[in-house]
């Protein structure tokens, strides 16, 4: 009985972590899928989002007015800030190594320039945060992260699982954002233009689509998503300038697992990683949870190299 209770409790933890990872992966997949840019600074953009959320919650929003909702509203307010930041980054820097400016380069050459640029950006963000904010971890204090809803299991009188309030609300927000984003990309004209620009940028130009702007919007959206995911994460996970390093690896694993370029796939890839990370603690020591992720990762790719939702519609 204790094992069942423990397993369910771990499953709940896995789902809530998985939702955040899923959202993080969606942001990365958006940038990769539309711009074909490999962005190693994605984890650090998340870190910036975490700090922005703390800043907004502590200095902009009066807690007396918003009460326990303060951290979540702060996370939502990260979106416009990071959208603008991402748009500027893409417009000023990334666009020089992507899209049309790089069209004269071979794919490999363009990717090398992007890799170095995004790694440089990652270093600047990390060390910039270090200089400005110091290395001691910061956290957002929310009463919700130390309280839980208790759901009794009906197998006996005392077993129950706990839903941490902050994590549960977070998970719901992550799912809602992912669904809205998916709808936006699939159904709206702007979303379709982004997909067209991703599918064939030359043809997209012949349709009258401003491909450079489409790329900037994609990068800005990806940045905003990294930001809000960070803003939600910081409610129970402390931030320090190098926090992005651990997360960017998880994000890449999730995106590859889901199938490169697929946004739905990226969410499920992130979810899988969250679940594996938490559920593995039932069987192996907690220090091995990240090892478990990559064992599963390799195993999935061995069976399905294109990932869960890899594109196979292409006709030769």
């Amino acid at each position, binding site marked *: 009985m204790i094992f069942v209770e423990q397993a369910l409790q771990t499953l709940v933890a896995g789902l809530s972590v998985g939702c955040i990872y899923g959202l993080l992966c969606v942001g990365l997949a958006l940038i990769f899928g539309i711009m074909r840019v490999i962005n190693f600074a994605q984890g650090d953009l998340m870190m910036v989002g975490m700090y922005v959320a703390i800043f907004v919650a502590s200095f902009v929003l009066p807690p007396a007015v918003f009460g326990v909702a303060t951290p979540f509203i702060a996370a939502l307010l990260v979106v416009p800030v990071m959208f603008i930041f991402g748009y500027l980054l893409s417009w000023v820097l990334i666009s020089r190594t992507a899209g049309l400016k790089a069209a004269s380069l071979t794919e490999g050459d363009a990717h090398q320039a992007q890799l170095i640029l995004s790694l440089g950006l990652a270093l600047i963000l990390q060390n910039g945060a270090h200089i400005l904010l110091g290395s001691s971890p910061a956290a957002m204090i929310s009463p919700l992260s130390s309280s839980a809803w208790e759901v009794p299991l009906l197998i006996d009188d005392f077993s129950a699982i706990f839903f941490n309030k902050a994590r549960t609300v977070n998970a719901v927000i992550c799912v809602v954002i992912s669904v809205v984003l998916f709808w936006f990309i699939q159904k709206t004209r702007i979303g379709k233009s982004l997909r067209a620009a991703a599918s064939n940028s030359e043809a997209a*130009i012949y349709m009258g*689509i401003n491909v450079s702007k489409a790329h900037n919007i994609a990068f800005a959206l990806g940045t905003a998503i990294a930001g809000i995911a960070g803003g939600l994460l910081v409610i129970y996970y402390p931030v320090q300038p190098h926090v992005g390093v651990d997360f960017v690896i998880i994000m890449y694993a999730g995106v590859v697992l889901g199938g490169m370029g697929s946004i739905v796939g990226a969410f499920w890839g992130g979810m899988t990683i969250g679940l594996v990370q938490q559920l593995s603690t039932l069987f192996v020591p907690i220090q091995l949870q990240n090892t478990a992720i990559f064992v599963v990762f390799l195993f999935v790719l061995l069976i399905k190299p294109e990932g869960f939702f890899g594109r196979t*519609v292409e006709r030769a």
Partner: protein
Amino acid sequence: MLRIDQLNVTYGGLQALDGISIDVKAGEFVAVVGPNGAGKTTLFKSISGTVIPWRGTMLFDGVDLATLAAYERPHLGIAHVPEGRKVFSGMTVFENLEMGASTEEGRRRWNDTLDLLFTMFPRLKDRRDQYAGTLSGGEQQMLAIGRGLASAPKLLMLDEPSMGLSPSMTDVIFDAVAKIHKEQGLTILLVEQRVAEALENCDHAYVLETGRVVLQGSLEELSSDDRVRRAYLGL
């Protein structure tokens, strides 16, 4: 409608177009023919703005195209159906057509255009929710032309629509293009390697060789020219 004067394009010192002058009048069907590497696609890309010419002017309805970015030119009424079709393979047939209608005029006439396209190419209607990447070559070409027409253009530019298609499919495509020209009165600029088919329907043709216009004239003038008869028509 489209006047190109002394157009020069170089790729890293290599001369691709050498002083090309071409004139397309409203309502005309103009063909540009010539062998591989003559600069036909480069000419089209210069008009669309994905290749920047080194010298020369291009006027479309009196607007200097050099003053507009590539993505702004379709909004003037230029539809470019690119070589190799370049459909949006991960999007459905219907979504591809929607992307064609990104121009204001295209959106305004969307319902009419859609009726027209589905009557002209019933296969596209049958496959409207299928991914474009799963279509056959001929169907993709229909889609590429349909996507161009969806912008409700003044000038339709077709870059080698016969590429990679079977002879019977090529006929279907050329018939459709001729029909669009006759029934809609649409101005057409066609680039082709299949000279005989291209000349068949055109009002005026240019023969391009290694970046130069070596010959031009009406269908009668060209088909009575010995060089064209020998080199291109096999007569």
